């Protein structure tokens, strides 16, 4: 390792460690590296600008962010919720099931776990903790756990970011997320049913079956959204990036014209907030571009791959080790940072060991989503705490069983790659 790389890493971790914005920390570390190595410090700006300006795929990020915000602001989420209550609210632990199902459907649109938790999640928590039917902590915990499904089921911003650093096909990645997302939904429902029976949580007043058609029709245009998206991408009609645009447009039409739930003023706020978060994510993506340039010119991934192949590690051992590492990092780092900064280190090793990059990508995304609810630093826990005021301590106290079952599901996906790869192969993915 060269001295300038060492300085670069010390600067990066030093600055990021004291709370400097990650994107800026990387930029400053890169400038330090280039300056010490006697290279042109302008390379930082050059790589970032060229990278952002050339990457068509990245346009999906601001578009999905906008789509998620539109969906949350209109009444689309409320309608979906009513549909879910009518469908699964009648069972023991009903609202818990509603929570899971709403996340499954809603995630087919938003692509962002935080949008799930802050939007539809907040409403469900209020319903669940009303009259003390469920404890506040339990309501918050299950909402956090189900929100992790969001970015597994397409569309998904983290998967777009993974595709950027790994060159894996976005279409295949999106498809590969469907079954794992459903599995996560099923295990969470199972856990909810078990806990609800054991602790005797109340049942909901069942919605009369004769009302079901009306509620379904009411939610139908919103339910159609995932279908349109998936058909667009896999029917070969649109690229995933274009599908992001279509999703945002469809959400806009639904909320604005069809349901008439969006005023011009709130639309303006949506654009402002979306631009704000796009900029914040964009600067980290930019940082990742220059950081990847540095680690590649230092041949770090190549050296890692050499050492690991020489050690003759079994691919499964490697996968387990990397997942353990990411799970651990997920307790302290943000998913964007893990995918953009840490994961590129392992890509060449994966290729050398013959691990499928789509399989790897889904594992990483699932894993870093689990990281969103892992104490002490789970962003979803903080977001729910911020929007509902439920104390972190109560949420964390209830989160462990859901965390355990999700990690179990992850382990299953590691051991049985077919769960992940079956669907993309069905659609002609070679790998």
């Amino acid at each position, binding site marked *: 390792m060269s001295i300038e790389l060492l300085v670069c890493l010390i*600067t990066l971790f030093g600055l990021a460690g004291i709370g400097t914005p990650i994107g800026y920390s990387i930029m*400053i570390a890169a400038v330090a590296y280039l300056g010490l190595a006697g290279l042109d410090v302008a390379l930082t*700006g*050059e790589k970032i600008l060229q990278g952002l300006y050339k990457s*068509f795929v990245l346009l999906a990020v601001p578009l999905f962010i906008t789509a998620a915000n539109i969906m949350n602001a209109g009444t689309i989420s409320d309608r979906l919720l009513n549909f879910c209550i009518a469908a699964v609210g009648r069972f023991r632990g009903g609202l818990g099931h509603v929570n899971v199902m709403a996340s499954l459907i809603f995630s087919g649109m938003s692509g962002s776990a935080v949008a799930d938790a802050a939007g539809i999640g907040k409403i469900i928590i209020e319903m669940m903790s009303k009259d003390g039917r469920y404890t506040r902590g339990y309501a918050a915990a299950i909402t956090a756990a189900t929100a992790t499904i969001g970015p597994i089921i397409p569309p998904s911003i983290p998967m777009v970011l993974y595709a950027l650093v790994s060159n894996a096909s976005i279409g295949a990645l999106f498809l590969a997320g469907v079954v794992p997302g459903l599995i996560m939904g099923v295990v969470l429902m199972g856990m909810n049913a078990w806990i609800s029976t054991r602790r005797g949580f109340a049942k909901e007043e069942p919605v009369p079956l004769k009302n079901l058609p009306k509620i379904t029709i009411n939610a139908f245009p919103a339910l159609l959204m995932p279908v349109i998206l998936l058909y667009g991408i896999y029917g070969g009609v649109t690229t995933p990036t274009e599908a992001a*645009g279509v999703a945002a447009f469809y959400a806009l039409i639904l909320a604005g014209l069809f349901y008439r739930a969006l005023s011009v003023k709130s639309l303006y706020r949506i*654009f402002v907030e979306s631009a704000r978060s796009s900029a*914040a994510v*964009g600067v980290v993506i930019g940082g990742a571009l220059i950081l990847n340039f540095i680690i590649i010119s230092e041949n770090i991934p190549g050296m890692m791959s050499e050492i690991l192949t020489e050690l003759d590690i079994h691919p499964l051992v490697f996968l387990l080790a990397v997942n353990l590492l990411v799970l651990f990092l997920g307790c302290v780092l943000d998913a964007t940072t893990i995918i953009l900064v840490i994961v590129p280190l392992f890509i060449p090793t994966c290729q050398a060991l013959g691990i499928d990059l789509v399989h790897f990508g889904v594992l990483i995304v699932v894993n870093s989503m689990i990281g969103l609810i892992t104490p002490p630093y789970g962003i979803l826990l903080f*977001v729910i705490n911020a929007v509902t005021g439920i104390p972190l301590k109560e949420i964390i106290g209830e989160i462990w069983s859901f965390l355990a079952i999700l990690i179990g599901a992850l382990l299953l996906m590691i051991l049985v790659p077919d769960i992940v790869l079956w669907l993309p192969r069905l659609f002609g993915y070679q790998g």
Partner: protein
Amino acid sequence: MKQILKYFSSGAEFIAATMLAAMFLTFLLQIFSRYVLLTPFGWTLELCLILWVWIVFFGCAFLTRERDHVTFDIFYLASPRRVRQAMALIACAAIVIGMAWALPATWDYIDWMKIRKTTTVKNPFTGAKIPIRTIFSIYAIFMVAVILRYAWRFVDVLRNGPPDEDHEIPGHEPDPPHIRHGDDAT
């Protein structure tokens, strides 16, 4: 002073929202041209990319607040106030020094890019292709703005101590938009 700052930030919000809306519309236009007209316009894609670059750096320069950024703040939040102040000061100083160091060379690069032009997007008034320098100049503006902002923050933290609201919600997500509750939902 406060009034000016308020006008300034709502102006920045307006520009950013307009850029995002424009990007969104251009993108839809592109899809329309490709799948309905079957003759892609070509310029739409490049315009989207230009707007994307501008949204990111204009946004970071004038729109994002400290708490919007992706940060790792466990240590920061766990530290006593004096230590926090020192951390915030070091962070500000490092950003200012690093950005100021890179600025001249970066401007040279951006200025040199005047020889390259956009491939499809044209200036609507003159019909001439736009130099890449014009597009990339937002990065120089971003650097200057970041230098000024963090220099100001340095002084502010030195005088008033570390602000408390900067790390309220970790992560980069926006304030959750208002959700409508109402009978019209069913």
